[in-house]
């Protein structure tokens, strides 16, 4: 077998794990002047490292292509991650992690990447299996990112007021569900949804009007592009000044933010119908509305959905930022800006996590509807290359 055929990731994993056994696990405690921990004293970790060396070298030669190999590798990685966390917190390595520890993390990284790689390239005709694989890959990747965050923050002893570890954020999240729920209701349900519907809806209607009047199209669109480049930070305080402290001013900011992407996309979409198709409708002497509903709006749908997707993330961000400029004392943006000042950074991150979850779910919902509504579009057909 030649060098090039060796599985490089597994090789890296094996070598890094081997070196991890040799190099010091942790540094010296500044106060006591003693070495914090030795690999030899922690059987679980030693086992995990040894296992990594064995499995890594085995798959270096065997090659890790099958789904079972991927599963085994991921299982080893999970065990390793668990041991690494336990070393950090149960053996006092947090804040003192040394070269050996980081080498082991590198080894785990190589394993995780190889495992994810295998599953990502998994093809099955069984739809549920394929869906499961497609779901596992990003989740595993995300969990890995969280793990790295946790380990880096704890390992280097980063102050909590700068960046708390995810475990702490998770704990705060679970313990503050009532506050989070109230904030979510204020920001998302009241401000985001209403602003989103008003902004996208009005832009859609204006787009159809603009499309009918070419003069407006030529006059409004270039300005529209300029307005969408306006920094909303500047607009937000003005909206608070005009529409008051409650959700209405946030909805207004969202309307401004979402209006122009929707307008521009819809107008573009209304012109997306091919010349040939328009000619076809002309041969039927089809009227304006008939052509609009039968040809131009369906052809515009991919563009409309594009705007809806962009706006779904913009809307949440807009609401949160607008809350920096004045709110009643509830809401996600309010909480974020207040809790920073109170040094409750874990609460800040819990809100950020909530925002990310809500935003992703919102985006996902729109994308799902898009898939259902425009399944005819070429981008949803099977790609072969």
């Amino acid at each position, binding site marked *: 077998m030649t060098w090039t055929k060796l599985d490089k990731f597994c090789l890296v994993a094996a070598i890094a794990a081997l070196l991890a056994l040799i190099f010091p696990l942790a540094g010296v405690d500044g106060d006591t002047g003693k070495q914090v921990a030795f690999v030899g004293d922690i059987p679980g970790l030693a086992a995990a490292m040894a296992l990594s060396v064995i499995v890594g070298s085995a798959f270096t030669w065997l090659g890790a292509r099958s789904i079972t190999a991927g599963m085994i590798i991921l299982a080893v990685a999970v065990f390793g991650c668990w041991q690494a966390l336990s070393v950090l917190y149960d053996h006092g390595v947090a804040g003192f992690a040394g070269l050996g520890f980081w080498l082991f993390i590198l080894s785990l990284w190589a394993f995780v*990447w190889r495992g*994810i*790689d295998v599953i*990502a*390239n998994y093809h099955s005709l069984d739809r549920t299996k394929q869906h499961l694989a*497609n779901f596992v*890959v*990003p989740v*595993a*990747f*995300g969990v890995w990112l969280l793990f790295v965050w946790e380990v880096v923050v704890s390992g280097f002893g980063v102050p909590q007021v*700068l*960046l708390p570890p995810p475990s702490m954020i998770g704990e705060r999240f679970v313990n503050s569900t009532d506050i989070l729920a109230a904030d979510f209701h204020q920001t998302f349900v009241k401000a985001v949804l209403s602003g989103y519907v008003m902004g996208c809806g009005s832009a859609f209607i204006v787009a159809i009007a603009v499309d009918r009047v070419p*003069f*407006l*199209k*030529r*006059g*409004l669109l*270039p*300005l529209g*592009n*300029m*307005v*969408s*480049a*306006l*920094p*909303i*930070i*500047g*607009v937000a*305080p*003005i909206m608070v*000044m*005009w529409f008051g402290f409650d959700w209405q001013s946030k909805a207004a900011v969202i309307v401004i933010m979402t209006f122009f992407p929707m307008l521009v996309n819809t107008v573009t979409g209304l012109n997306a119908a091919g010349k040939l198709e328009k000619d076809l409708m002309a041969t039927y002497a089809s009227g304006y509305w008939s052509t609009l509903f039968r040809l131009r709006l369906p052809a515009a749908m991919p563009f409309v959905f594009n705007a809806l997707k962009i706006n779904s*993330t913009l809307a*949440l*961000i807009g609401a*949160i*930022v607008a809350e*920096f*400029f004045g709110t009643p004392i509830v809401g*996600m*943006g309010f909480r*974020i800006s207040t809790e*920073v000042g109170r040094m409750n*950074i874990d609460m*800040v991150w819990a809100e*950020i996590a909530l*925002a*990310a979850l*809500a*935003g*992703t779910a*919102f*985006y996902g919902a729109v994308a799902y509807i898009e898939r259902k509504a425009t399944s005819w579009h070429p981008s949803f057909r099977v*790609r*072969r*290359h």
Partner: protein
Amino acid sequence: MTGSVRGPSTWTRMMSGQTGPVCVVLIALLVLWYVGAVFMNAPTQIDRYNRADQTWTTGQLIEDTLAQDRPILPAPHQVAVEMYHTIFAIKITSKRSLVYHSWVTLSSTLLGFGIGTLLGVLLAVGIVHVMTLEKSLMPWVISSQTIPILAIAPMIIVVLGAIGIKGLVPKAVISTYLCFFPVTISMVKGLRSPQVIQLDLMRTYNASKWQTFWQLRLPSAMPYLFASLKVAIAISLVGAIVGELPTGAQAGLGARLLAGSYYGQTIQIWSALLTAAFVAAILVVIVGWCERRVLVRMGVKS
């Protein structure tokens, strides 16, 4: 000119282009703005009359609403005067010059835009070529944008400051974060835009991945790239401005905006805002110009 007018008149020609309609719409907006200014400023003005036990006429009211010191909505001419003073009537090295502040913002905008574009393109290349990256990274790229970066910008500044990175770079980092996303998304689309038949063609030549990339994927992606660059440059300006807010009293359009709102000086806010919009427009126009140059070189139908 005498005799018959040949071809369309100047008026119709102007109106069928873009400048004419834009001007008309602008004028309409201006009128609306004036009307809005009168209506929004009237209550405080009337309050003021009442407090001073002063009688007033409608004409006087209109005049006064358009000349308030701290109007709720400043009149266009007030903003214009302020902009004239801070742009043209003052040395550009002065701290009161908007040109100076624009430059401060612009430098971090451009740095962030550069890094963001590079990052965006690299990510897209990775995602298009490596299935694992597509499946694992792509969902997170989308999720990353649902994090209100604007809300954690102050913390980013502090964290970067803690590891000794100060000045231009933290602001550019925020720009980068905002502007890599549209670039990645469109580039992924663009790099995938070659038709199956074109990819098959390259396969029949047994072209390598890199050859296919340079000869086929990248040229096909050009229109997508430029469309996203226009969004990215505007958004990276927003990022730079956001980055300037937490650093409070330091220079830049963001600092101007903040100082304006801190002291309730709406005229200053609006002129900073309009300047930002102009800078954004100019940047977008420059990108558009580059786009045309590139596309012409690529032989695309004008």
